[in-house]
């Protein structure tokens, strides 16, 4: 966010400057787009961001390592667990801490559910932007089930903070298998339902095919990552290329398309939803047993039970809560595949109990840079379609 809309000095007779946002139903938050229009054609587009800047990175420097986890939820509020995971992995790498298999698999399962959650919101709002209202509500029906699962695990629907440094916040709840199984059993047929409404719908095809094209080279050049790159034909997914948290033990495919238009992105994300369901099912069936946290007494909070019966546990608890734990100096750049693309946390430690610097390389920020390339020369209606296909979250852009 910065200056006011430019006062048009020349060609005023031809073009119209339109401020789309920051309060506009389809900018998905507080994005401001300054559009220069010639009739209904967009001549120039300039995104202005920062309306949701909360200074999270500064805040992180003031908190103990454990406390930062709850802040990461708020970065990308549609994929909180991906952010939790990325931060925890980074700090664990700094500490050289190994988390037990149960925690790793549980992390995979829950981040894939997060991906589904995020993609469902994307599909719903994207379809709503193009005028298909019902899909929105169908998507939110399924999202509700995912949020219930999250609530079951962490007691929270959105800001879960379920992953902690060294493992999980609490033990998985009793009966989680049942809830997850019920979800993965029904969900594929629900995806079919969305596809029935959209995939071959002639109006949908007309609104999305060939719209918002950007070449693969330009996308990489502009720093775009995630499903948008895969829709342009690059089979790059950090889950495969730099596997973290045991992703290499799961069997899934990277869907790609080559058209690089709104429809291709739609197809890629829908296929990702199917693949994520596959991963969740594998995690469900092969979930290892064991502890949910690493055996690292100075870092992981002790069990409540032990805390009330053992002296050391109580001391550790007191120390972790009041003064945290020290992390050896160094820096780590940990990337994960969030629903929107490459999410990376750059954590710098000076040896203290608070991070010296936490930088969040958020996918939406990089992706949004490609917006002008996508919509200039198109129609206003295409702006909405292209915006929807980028699937950004303003909290993720502005941090």
């Amino acid at each position, binding site marked *: *966010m*910065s*200056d006011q809309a430019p006062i048009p000095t020349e060609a005023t007779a031809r073009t119209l400057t339109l401020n789309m946002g920051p309060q506009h139903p389809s900018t998905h938050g507080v994005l401001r787009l300054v559009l220069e229009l010639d009739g209904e054609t967009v001549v120039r587009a300039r995104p202005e*961001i*920062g309306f949701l*800047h909360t*200074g999270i*990175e*500064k805040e992180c*420097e*003031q908190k103990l390592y454990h406390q930062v986890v709850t802040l990461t939820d708020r970065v990308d509020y549609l994929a909180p667990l991906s952010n939790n995971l990325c931060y925890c992995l980074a700090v664990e*790498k*700094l500490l*050289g801490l190994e988390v037990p298999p149960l925690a790793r698999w549980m992390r995979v399962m829950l981040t894939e559910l997060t991906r589904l959650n995020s993609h469902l919101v994307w599909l719903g709002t994207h379809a709503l932007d193009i005028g298909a209202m019902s899909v929105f509500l169908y998507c939110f029906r399924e999202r509700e089930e995912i949020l219930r699962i999250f609530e079951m695990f962490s007691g929270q629907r959105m800001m879960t903070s379920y992953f902690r440094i060294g493992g999980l916040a609490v033990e998985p709840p009793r009966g989680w298998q049942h809830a997850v199984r019920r979800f993965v059993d029904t969900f594929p047929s629900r995806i079919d339902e969305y596809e029935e409404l959209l995939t071959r719908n002639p109006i949908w095809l007309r609104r999305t095919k060939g719209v918002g094209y950007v070449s693969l080279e330009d996308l*990489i*050049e*502009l*720093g*775009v990552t995630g499903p948008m790159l895969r829709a342009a034909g*690059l089979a*790059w997914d950090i889950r495969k*290329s*730099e596997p973290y948290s045991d992703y290499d033990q799961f069997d899934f495919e990277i869907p790609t398309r080559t058209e690089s238009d709104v429809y291709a992105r739609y197809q890629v994300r829908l296929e990702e939803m199917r693949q994520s369901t596959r991963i969740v099912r594998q995690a469900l069936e092969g979930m290892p047993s064991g502890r949910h946290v690493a055996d690292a007494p100075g870092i992981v909070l002790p069990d409540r039970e032990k805390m009330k019966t053992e002296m050391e546990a109580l001391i550790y608890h007191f120390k972790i809560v009041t003064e945290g734990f020290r992390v050896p100096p*160094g*820096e*780590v*750049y940990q*990337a994960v595949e969030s629903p929107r693309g*490459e999410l*990376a946390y*750059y954590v*710098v430690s000076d040896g203290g109990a608070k991070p*010296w*610097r936490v*930088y969040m*390389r958020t996918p939406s*920020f*990089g992706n*949004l*840079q490609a917006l002008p390339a996508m919509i200039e020369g198109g129609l206003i209606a295409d702006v909405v379609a292209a915006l929807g296909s980028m699937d950004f979250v303003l909290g993720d852009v*502005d*941090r």
Partner: protein
Amino acid sequence: MLSRVLEQNSPAAELVAWDPEAVLDGKLDRGEVTLFIAPARIAAVCGFLKERGFTRLSSITAVDWYPAEPRFEVVYHLHNMRDNRRLRLKCRLSEGESIPSVTGVWRGADWYEREVWDLFGIRFENHPDLRRILLPEDWTDHPLRKDYPVHGRRYDYVREGGE
């Protein structure tokens, strides 16, 4: 200059062979390669590395080591998508120093450099449009600096807490 481990690292070795002056130091820590680059050479180094396969710029950010001198580190994370390797470049800068922009190498560096300018106050030379990006245009000071206070009202700390 480079440790033995890094000499076996092909991009690092190639870079040193291409321009020994550009690389000041390097380290391999927790499996991540960091090269310290002379600030004036950063654009050229990035151009060279981009040709050598580091086609994607993952991010640009900065770290403020106040009160140490030079206080700033501008950090570039490069990614080689073919071999799947990541490389971190660092440039050390003092207060008031500027650094060449890499927007000529990657157009996508635009917003990252604006963000660093906005939050740290590090100027990028030859940047096409170096405006504040996250904060309002009339904001004074740069909040991610370590001497930027976290408490109090803004008007108080501009007067007392600031520099």
